[in-house]
């Protein structure tokens, strides 16, 4: 085969591959728009959600904040946007898409060291934002900050949906499988603290104070605070854990202080620490613990708003 023949064939192949990738992109988008569970929830957050109060964070947010309790206490609608295994990088991108549609009245940010401070592979937090790439400049810049090659990688639709194929298919064909209630909350029932051996390591990790702070996460933490709409009230919350922790959250506290953001710390709260019946595991509250925590949080927010004469409801 001559060079000319080879070049033509190779070019044809590249064009066909690009076309097939575009077609696969259409299929993936179709699947994603129809799939249930976390995809349906993510689509709701992205395109429909208009609740007054939104909760952002990782799995701790998903399991710890009961929207109907917060809603009753604060007399506002609430949606829980917590996303398992995600942190500040995802939250920045998601908030930017939400701000394009509307400005929530209260934004509760649940923080956790592993996802919001510690240096680790940030590209894993971009998975849910890949669909939004190219639609929002702030999200695009987030991709470039995390991975300098993303400009080229994101040209391919199949790469955008990398590692979602099986999950999308399962959630498409079993749309009834939904672990979330209509307000985004997911409850953990009972407690497995005494039964699970593997949790021992989790317990030990809790007090691991050695941590390298990630400048990218800090940069986007600051951006979240600075990009906050003027009319929105933002609160950073450290939700309860089974054991006392000595993690240094000073940099978050400082950012909050500099920008007049309320910071509430329940991480070493005696009402929760050591009370196994409130926890599902060493990190997450069970349904009973979450209800207790939501009541306390709602009352503290209400008290703060009243004491400081802040009127958000209107």
């Amino acid at each position: 085969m001559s060079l000319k023949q080879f070049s033509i064939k190779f070019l044809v192949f590249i064009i066909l591959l690009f076309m097939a990738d575009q077609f696969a992109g259409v299929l993936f988008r179709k699947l994603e728009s129809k799939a249930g569970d976390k995809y349906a929830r993510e689509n709701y957050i992205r395109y429909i959600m208009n609740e007054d109060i939104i909760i952002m964070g990782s799995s701790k947010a998903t399991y710890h904040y009961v929207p109907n309790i917060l809603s009753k206490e604060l007399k506002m609608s609430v949606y829980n946007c917590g996303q398992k295994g995600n942190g500040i990088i995802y939250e920045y991108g998601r908030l930017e898409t939400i701000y394009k549609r509307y400005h929530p009245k209260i934004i509760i940010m649940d923080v956790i060291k592993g996802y919001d401070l510690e240096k680790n592979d940030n590209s894993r937090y971009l998975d849910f934002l890949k669909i939004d790439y190219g639609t929002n400049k702030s999200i695009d810049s987030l991709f470039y900050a995390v991975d300098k090659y993303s400009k080229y990688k994101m040209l391919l639709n199949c790469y955008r949906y990398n590692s979602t194929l099986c999950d999308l298919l399962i959630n498409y064909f079993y749309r009834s499988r939904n672990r979330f209630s209509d307000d985004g909350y997911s409850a953990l029932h009972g407690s497995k603290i005494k039964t699970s051996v593997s949790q021992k390591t989790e317990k030990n990790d809790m007090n691991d104070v050695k941590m390298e702070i990630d400048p990218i996460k800090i940069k986007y933490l600051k951006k979240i605070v600075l990009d906050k709409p003027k009319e929105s009230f933002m609160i950073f919350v450290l939700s309860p854990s089974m054991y006392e922790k000595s993690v240094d959250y000073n940099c978050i506290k400082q950012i909050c202080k500099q920008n007049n953001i309320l910071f509430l710390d329940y991480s070493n709260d005696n009402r929760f620490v050591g009370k196994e019946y409130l926890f599902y595991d060493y990190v997450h509250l069970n349904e009973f613990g979450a209800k207790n925590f939501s009541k306390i949080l709602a009352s503290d927010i209400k008290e703060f708003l009243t004491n400081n004469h802040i009127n958000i409801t209107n």
Partner: protein
Amino acid sequence: MLFNTLAFLLFFPLVCIVYYLINNNNLRTWFLLIASFWFYSNLSPYYTLILLGSIIVTYFSGILIDTSNSERKKKLFVFLAIIINVCILLYFKYTNFLVSILNDIVCAFGWGGTKEQFNIILPIGISFYIFKTISYISDVYKGKIVAEKDFHLLSLYISFFPQLLAGPIERAGNMLTQFNEKVKFDGYNITSGLKMMLWGYFLKLVFADRAIIYVDAIYSNLDNHNGTSILLASVLYSFQIYCDFAGYSLLSIGVAKSMGYNVMNNFNRPYLAVSVTDFWHRWHISLSTWLKDYVYIPLGGSRCSKIRNYWNIFITFLVSGIWHGANWTYIVWGCLHGILQIIEKAMGQQKCKYGWFGKSVKIAVTFCLINLAWMFFRLPSVNDTMYAIKKIFTSYGMPFVGRDATPALEYCALGLLFLIIKDVLDEFFPNRFHFFDNDSIIVRYASYIFICLLILAAGVFDNSQFIYMQF
């Protein structure tokens, strides 16, 4: 630079284009040599010096062996060259292991001892290029090849970048002949090279790098997992190591093929072997033929008494185990393979004389035995392996699923489906079903595009190392 990095995807086409643009063969091979050293120095410039040292020793010893008149002198040069190269390997790979053995002996006699280890970093690919140098010296001594007078060609043979990090351990006779001839541009070479690379990337990115997530989760925490999970992890590891190494080999052979060089095949559907002996005719073929030519046959091979023949098999696989790594687990793994082959030979079970049912049973039994041996290979100690095996037979339950484990299992199932279909069709219907080599251009292109899209959608792009690079 690893084959599964973006840097390599830029490096390879660039090298290929410049290579074909150069008309003069001498300049081409010089260019390939520079590219190979640049490829290797990307890992560490320090490693490159060790490689260069080994090349210099091999080059001069080859010339001295070839030009010496007396047999005694030839033997002396062979001995010195092999000893120097083996010592380089011993120092980097086995110092700490030997020190720990000595330490255990000293402790056993109550003479004290220390747990301190030397901080020695193993240069990537050292086991592979040292074996190449040994085979070259041996072949020159036996008169199979003439010593290469051109330093840069011998250097290229030892450091040729597609084979440098993890083989295949190609013989000098085959490669030097090809380096001496000018390769004309042929689109078919590039196409068939790219096809091999495509399947290699599929094996590595879609299966091997996905399976590692589940295998590591189980094997790094044996206490907390039941026997069912351990069994599942062991099966996944068998396929992980196959996909990882066969994937690497296909990439290596494909890259060389794209530049017009034919490199020996390294894998031939090993898990469809009907015996452990058959397995070694299909697995890491370049190493098993190397061991046959430079260990088994010099020991006497099969042209001796039965007992001596069994001993030769055992020693050959003991060497194979030691070559793989400085740990008792590799030695046990090698011995196990040796013993199993001796048993097969004694029972006349090396080949399959039965019908399809008997063959299926033999394939299944062989896979179970190989799978068991891989557990020794993968787990950190013999005690851990025994503990894991015991758990498989005593602790039952549902396999472990979790945040990362569930998707890992889903994608492994998907990858395994395609792998099994391809291997079974290639093995049992070799002339009936072809996808990449189908006569219809539509089927061919559809297969390429489908696998490309599958890699993009289901591959793991974390630039993880290939397993065999650690050897």
